[in-house]
């Protein structure tokens, strides 16, 4: 059932491999058609059967398929005609460079369409429904170099896609009301749905979906425009299959909603309107495909109207009409394509006398046109006859419908003759040599046309499948018995009248085409107007929302967060309810004032250097806080980082001028207020959180298992290199990326040349001597920090920072070149080696079947284990990162 999707993937490859053998692909849908036909005969005797595969059970989504008569009838049309279309396309698009894309889309469409007609789950139905819209978008826009094709594809996508969303809405409401997502189960719950509160909305949404898909008035405009598609696509999607998905949906919902007045009125009126509008417009066109497109609209209208009428006879007539139409309209489209392919035009005023050049195509076109006109002994006659009969035996407004239908049938018959006969009649007036196309271009239309004749001669062969389809549609058992001859009834007389009118009209078709009133405006203009209105609206709104500089967004976001957060804090009312419980010592107060003073100084600094120094003061102050409250690891790291940061700041900020204010005073006051607000909220938040008692479960867990499982007494380090080593791995990767970014940015500026040293070394002999002596000591201290880190404050992070500081000191004293020499390897090598070691330290655990980075320890008293190796990796990465940044910056010209 879903195999076309597989074929779609294969097709792209196969067709590019064997460009002249694409026709073989037709074998698959043909086989599917046979299998489905077999299933159909079973369904005739057994009724439908459900096949269910779970998909996302938690969402109530399952791939459940209902192989009943209605679905199978459509499925056979889809695969059977699909096989012919693929065969046809193999010649039509032979040698097209993107034929693979075409077949992939076509088969995906076929699969989606099968999904639509066989799904039993309303959500699955929606998914496939939208998939048909999407694949048809690809197919209509296949020749995407042309603006018209793109516009038509987008229009079809928007119109039918909107309908698809309506279907989703209807599906959700249906599930809500009935408690089931299964379409067949919903029929059983009919009562609760029809009397439910959302019934009107459900009907509206379902019909919106069906009418957009089947191009019913007022959504009909997209279908003629969709003729931009390659002809095989038009024949397949826009006559035989996709546009009938709407008809299918109406038929599928008929057992559920068919008897309610809202439904019947809406469906009948829309169908009748489409029938008349389509037929009327079809005879005014000169392009073969547009003629056929409008006549397709009309035929869809007939089916919709008959389903709306909803009597047993009407349902049977609708199904017969559907089958007949699929046959003759498919054939006519393919004939039009063959003419276009051979004669190079589809304009009927430029086509004549092709019967000699293309006799077989002419035969197919003629036979199909006869069926379309409803000449006796064709299946089209059976369909039209049945429709007349159904409308004749009714009350109320049925006579009006009948009159409209006769009118439409006359015009449709004329359209059929124009499309299927006119190009072949008359004298040969063309200079260009035209000849019969290759067999692949005439076999498919001929088969379709001949099927119409055969079924017209012996209509009873379709009794079985149609009975089971009609039964599924009507919801009660229906027995179809089609016959060739009903006797000399009123219906037959009406048919003859229609034919006579068609014959007369065909004699004056030129004046019918040119002298009839053509509407200047249609619903398409409404659509275009709405679309351009939306564009204009967003064009007006977007600049107002998106034109400001980035900091304005920051300001708005901060201000909003401050207002919302402040409101929440006030509403919570917990501020001050629990009093701070840590005592205050005088030196804490001093530190806090240093921090605050540094922040204020940094804010109002007029030179970059004073800003940097103030910032450094803040950093050291924060480090002091860490030290005061039991976090020596943090304090050490912060001290090292702050020192190196100031160094980098100085290296960069020497290029910047002063920091005098740029914004007007009022702006600064406003920003200041926003900033104060954010500070107030953050302070309040912190006060509220810090004074709330929390259960310290994590704290106790790590404290208990750190020494035992982690083999380390410094719990912070154990967390970093063992319990949360994967996080740390991510973090050192980020660091490495930042360093590479810095290096890249600076190299980019110098075209990859290593610049000369732009910072002169300090020439003081005292400093140099001190640096020479201190550097090895600091390095030893760094390694010491690394080694003891697992048990005492220290570790890879701070060790790496200190090691980097040692080389930075050396660089300040002797210049970067000498520092690089002292380092022996490049910073990049350090970085790469560190990352590799950290990564590899996780591998042994994987080899032993444990999760990546699980700690493994060697037996014995020595602390040898993978976390130690990991920490070495961290050490190297951090040192490499810092040195890479500092060296690159100092060497930058």
């Amino acid at each position: 059932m879903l195999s076309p999707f597989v074929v779609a993937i294969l097709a792209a490859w196969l067709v590019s491999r064997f460009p002249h053998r694409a026709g073989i692909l037709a074998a698959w849908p043909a086989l599917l058609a046979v299998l489905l036909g077999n299933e159909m005969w079973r369904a005739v005797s057994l009724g439908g059967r459900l096949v269910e595969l779970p998909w996302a059970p938690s969402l109530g989504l399952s791939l459940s398929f209902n192989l009943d008569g209605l679905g199978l009838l459509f499925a056979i049309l889809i695969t059977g005609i699909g096989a012919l279309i693929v065969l046809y396309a193999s010649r039509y698009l032979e040698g097209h460079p993107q034929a693979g894309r075409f077949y992939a889309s076509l088969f995906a469409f076929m699969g989606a369409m099968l999904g639509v007609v066989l799904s039993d789950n309303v959500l699955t139905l929606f998914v496939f429904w939208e998939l048909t819209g999407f694949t048809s978008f690809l197919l209509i826009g296949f020749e995407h170099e042309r603006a018209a094709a793109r516009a038509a594809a987008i229009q079809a996508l928007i119109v039918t896609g909107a309908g698809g969303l309506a279907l989703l809405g209807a599906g959700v409401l249906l599930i809500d009301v009935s408690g089931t997502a299964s379409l067949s189960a919903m029929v059983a719950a009919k009562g609760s749905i029809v009397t439910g509160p959302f019934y009107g909305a459900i009907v509206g949404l379902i019909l919106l979906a069906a009418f957009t898909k089947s191009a019913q008035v007022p959504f009909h405009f997209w279908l003629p425009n969709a003729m931009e598609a390659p002809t095989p696509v038009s024949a397949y999607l826009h006559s035989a299959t996709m546009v009938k998905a709407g008809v299918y949906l109406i038929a599928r919902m008929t057992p559920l909603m068919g008897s309610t007045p809202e439904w019947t009125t809406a469906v009948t009126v829309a169908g009748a309107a489409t029938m008349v509008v389509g037929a009327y417009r079809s005879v005014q066109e000169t392009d073969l495909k547009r003629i056929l497109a409008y006549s397709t609209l009309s035929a869809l209208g007939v089916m919709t109207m008959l389903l709306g009428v909803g009597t047993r006879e009407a349902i049977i007539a609708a199904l017969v009409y559907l089958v007949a139409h699929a046959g003759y309209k498919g054939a006519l489209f393919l004939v039009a394509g063959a003419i276009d392919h051979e004669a190079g035009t589809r304009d009927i005023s430029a086509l004549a006398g092709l019967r000699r050049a293309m006799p077989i195509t002419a035969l197919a076109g003629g036979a199909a046109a006869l069926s379309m006109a409803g000449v006796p002994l064709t299946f089209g006659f059976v369909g039209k006859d049945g429709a007349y009969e159904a409308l004749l035996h009714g009350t109320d407004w049925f006579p009006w419908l009948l009159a409209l239908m006769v009118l439409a049938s006359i015009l449709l018959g004329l359209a059929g003759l124009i499309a299927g006969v006119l190009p072949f009649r008359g004298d040969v007036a063309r200079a260009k040599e035209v000849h019969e196309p290759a067999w692949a271009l005439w076999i498919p239309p001929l088969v379709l046309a001949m099927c119409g004749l055969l079924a017209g001669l012996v209509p009873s062969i379709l009794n079985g499948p149609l009975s089971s389809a009609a039964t599924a549609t009507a919801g009660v058992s229906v027995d179809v018995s089609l016959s060739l001859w009903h006797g000399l009834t009123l219906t037959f007389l009406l048919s003859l009248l229609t034919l006579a009118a068609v014959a007369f009209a065909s004699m004056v078709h030129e004046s019918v085409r040119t002298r009839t009133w053509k509407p200047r405006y249609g619903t398409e203009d409404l659509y275009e107007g709405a679309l351009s209105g939306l564009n204009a609206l967003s064009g007006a709104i977007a600049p107002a929302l998106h034109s400001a500089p980035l900091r304005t967004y920051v300001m708005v976001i901060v201000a909003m967060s401050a207002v919302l957060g402040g409101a929440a804090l006030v509403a919570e009312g917990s501020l001050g309810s629990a009093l701070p419980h840590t005592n205050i010592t005088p030196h804490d107060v001093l530190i806090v004032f240093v921090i605050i003073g540094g922040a204020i100084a940094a804010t109002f600094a007029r030179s970059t250097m004073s800003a940097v120094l103030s910032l450094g003061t803040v950093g050291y102050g924060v480090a002091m806080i860490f030290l005061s409250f039991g976090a020596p690891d943090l304090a050490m790291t912060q001290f090292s980082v702050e020192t190196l940061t100031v160094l980098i700041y100085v290296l960069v900020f020497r290029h910047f001028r002063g920091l005098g204010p740029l914004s007007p005073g009022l702006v600064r006051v406003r920003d200041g207020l926003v900033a104060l607000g954010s500070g107030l909220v953050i302070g309040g938040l912190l006060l509220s959180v810090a004074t709330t008692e929390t259960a310290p479960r994590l704290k106790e867990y790590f404290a208990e298992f750190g020494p035992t499982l982690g083999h380390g007494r410094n719990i912070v380090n154990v967390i970093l290199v063992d319990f949360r080593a994967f996080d740390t791995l991510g973090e050192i990767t980020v660091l490495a990326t930042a360093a590479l970014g810095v290096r890249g940015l600076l190299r980019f500026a110098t075209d990859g040349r290593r610049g000369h040293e732009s910072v002169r070394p300090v020439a003081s002999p005292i400093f140099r001597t001190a640096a020479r002596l201190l550097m090895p000591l600091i390095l030893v201290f760094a390694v010491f920090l690394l080694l003891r880190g697992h048990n005492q404050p220290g570790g890879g992070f701070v060790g790496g920072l200190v090691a980097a500081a040692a080389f930075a000191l050396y660089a300040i004293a002797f210049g970067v070149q000498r520092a690089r020499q002292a380092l022996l390897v490049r910073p990049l090598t350090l970085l790469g080696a560190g990352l590799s070691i950290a990564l590899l330290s996780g591998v042994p655990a994987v080899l032993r079947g444990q999760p990546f980075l699980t700690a493994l320890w060697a037996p014995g008293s020595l602390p040898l284990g993978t976390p130690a190796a990991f920490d070495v990796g961290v050490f190297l990465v951090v040192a490499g990162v810092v040195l890479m940044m500092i060296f690159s910056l100092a060497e930058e010209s």
Partner: protein
Amino acid sequence: MEGLLALASGVLYAAGTYLMLRRRLAQLIVGLGLLSNGTNLLIFTAGGLTRARPPVVAAGAAALEPPYADPVPQALVLTAIVIGFGLTAFSLVLAHRVHATAGTDDVDDVGRER
């Protein structure tokens, strides 16, 4: 003490935010630095203050003896400090490149036709 640190954190945020709203590249980055310090202080304080022992098991002891400082926020802040360093360095160099290329440290002038 929590009140004092809430004050410090709030001032860091206010100053950082104010600087982030300025037009000079250099001030943006100083603001970023203040914000990241403020955030570290925020996380550290929110995790609970203990003027007690660091979360390091004494040599010879089997486990930590309460009271001890919470190691979890410490581990978080430690990596945040180092990542903040990387972030600051990268933004600095980026700002520097923008400044060198555009010839101005006013973000409103960057990319403007001159």
